[in-house]
């Protein structure tokens, strides 16, 4: 049911990302990064006032940082796991070129709960105050008095992004979306963000989604735009569809070691390559990375 929200990727970014917006990017580590939306944001030169990652950002954050579009970042990790540190995040942090709101996973999770539920702030479990994180980030963390016993407790500010870029494996045209693998914090991001721009591997009829209503991760009424982007997580993985492209990621990590290299990468793979062309040029690689699972697993 419902009106189709399927739009070309250029419209999704042009219409739902204001200049200087507070953007959250879904996915975690090398998986489910909404890379098609990230690349299109760079093509359109949209400035991001604040970027929020899941507990672990990777290419989704590092490429935007490398494009010079991000003013400040709220994160508890930007890296490429066993492949190494995030080159742009590292360089900008070391040169003082980015304002970092240093966080931990519990705060990002509970902060999104607070944003999703309209909680003015959220008290955090005792013990977290022993890390140095709250000492360097007074915008996200402060201390409050527990009204029930007078104890001093660490508290976090609510996280309410203006727009979330999320990847789901399948959705219907109106945006009822199913994450066929791990959810990471993507569902919470959808609940906490004012707008959701969704990229999906495949658009399916609502009748197919509604065979497992409890399996629907994001209901359509939270979704503003749906972009069909098969292979759209490349070079990261899309759970249940394809693995990450280690060779391409290594090429990126190698190039992004200096500013000239990252500009070369972005020029070649992003600015001079519309998303349709990127998809075409990578289709064979993505097919080769496909999980050899039964088709029933992908529904």
């Amino acid at each position, binding site marked *: 049911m419902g009106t189709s929200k399927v739009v070309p990727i250029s419209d999704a970014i042009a219409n739902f990302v204001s200049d200087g917006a507070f953007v959250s990017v879904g996915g975690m580590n090398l998986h489910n990064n909404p890379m098609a939306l990230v690349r299109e944001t760079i093509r359109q030169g949209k400035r991001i006032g604040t970027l929020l990652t899941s507990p*672990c950002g990777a290419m989704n954050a590092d490429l935007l940082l490398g494009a010079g579009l991000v003013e400040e970042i709220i994160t*508890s990790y930007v890296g490429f796991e066993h492949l190494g540190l995030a080159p742009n995040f590292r360089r900008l942090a070391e040169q003082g070129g980015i304002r970092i709101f240093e966080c*931990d996973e*519990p705060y990002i999770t509970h902060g999104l709960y607070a944003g999703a539920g309209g909680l003015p702030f959220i008290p955090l479990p005792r*013990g977290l105050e*022993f890390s140095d994180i709250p000492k360097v980030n007074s915008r996200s963390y402060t201390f409050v008095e527990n009204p029930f016993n007078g104890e001093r407790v660490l508290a976090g500010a609510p996280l309410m992004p203006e727009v979330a870029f999320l990847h789901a494996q399948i959705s219907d045209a109106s945006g009822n979306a199913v994450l066929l693998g791990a959810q*990471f914090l993507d569902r919470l991001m959808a609940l906490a963000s004012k707008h959701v721009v969704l990229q999906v591997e495949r658009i399916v009829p609502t009748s197919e989604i509604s065979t497992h209503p409890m399996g629907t991760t994001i209901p359509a009424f939270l979704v503003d735009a749906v972009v069909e982007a098969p292979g759209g997580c490349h070079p990261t*993985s899309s759970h249940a569809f394809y693995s990450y492209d280690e060779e391409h990621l290594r090429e990126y990590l190698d190039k992004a070691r200096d500013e000239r290299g990252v500009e070369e990468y972005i020029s070649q793979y992003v600015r001079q390559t519309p998303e349709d062309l990127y998809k075409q040029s990578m289709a064979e690689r993505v097919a080769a990375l496909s999980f050899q699972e039964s088709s029933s697993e992908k529904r």
Partner: protein
Amino acid sequence: MTSVSHIGEYSAAELMVTVLASQLHDGEVAIMGTASAIPQAACRLAQLTHAPDFSYIAGGTCSVNPYQQPLVPSACDYRLLRAETAVPLSDVVLMEGRGDVFDIFFAGGIQIDAYGNCNLVAVGSWEHPHPRGPGSVGLPFLSRVGRVLIYTMSHNPRTFVEKVDFLSGPGFLDGPDSWKQAKLMGGGPAMVVTPLCTMTFDHDTLRMKVATLHPGVELEQVQRATGFQLEVEEPVPTTQPPTNQQLEIVRAMDPDGLLR
């Protein structure tokens, strides 16, 4: 379990897997973070040998008791969902906060200090780091877990420092006084495993202490590779090497040789 391998027939990472497995017991539940192939192999090995009722949750995918068919390098991999079951990440964060669900947290860092504090953020000052690390993720929750098992492939003076430049995950803080005062829910760090040795923490000083030396490793070599004075009680015993049965199990789950 009777036949014992000889030195050189296994890698350092494989030895670390069997050592960590020996620390895991029936009925316990463990959690771990990014790039955690070593503890994941240890958990699966423990389940398949002495601890069938041990449980573990793999990284951000949050699969419960993944079968490790095969062992994968990324802790958020889809293939980890070949598992008994899975829970949402936000539920794992809730249970970490509850503090009495998880017995073991596998941790590491770009710096690890004499009291077992871990740093994943910055070497040097936070404002001007070099290098800047990836970030702390869930490490501050070390304060609320039964015990912490620290592992690293980097045993050198840059990693093992007297005091971390940035505290991501608390160990015994600044030592006995601060630890006592903090009254944390968790039990603190229990063991450190590296390619050279295993270390525990001295009962009184709460400082890192050499527990066993891996076969072929000398005590001076370990001290040279460590940026602070280690506690030592000589003679230091040799680490129990993997058995052939353990190696067979580990290699069967590791066809890509992540641990070789």
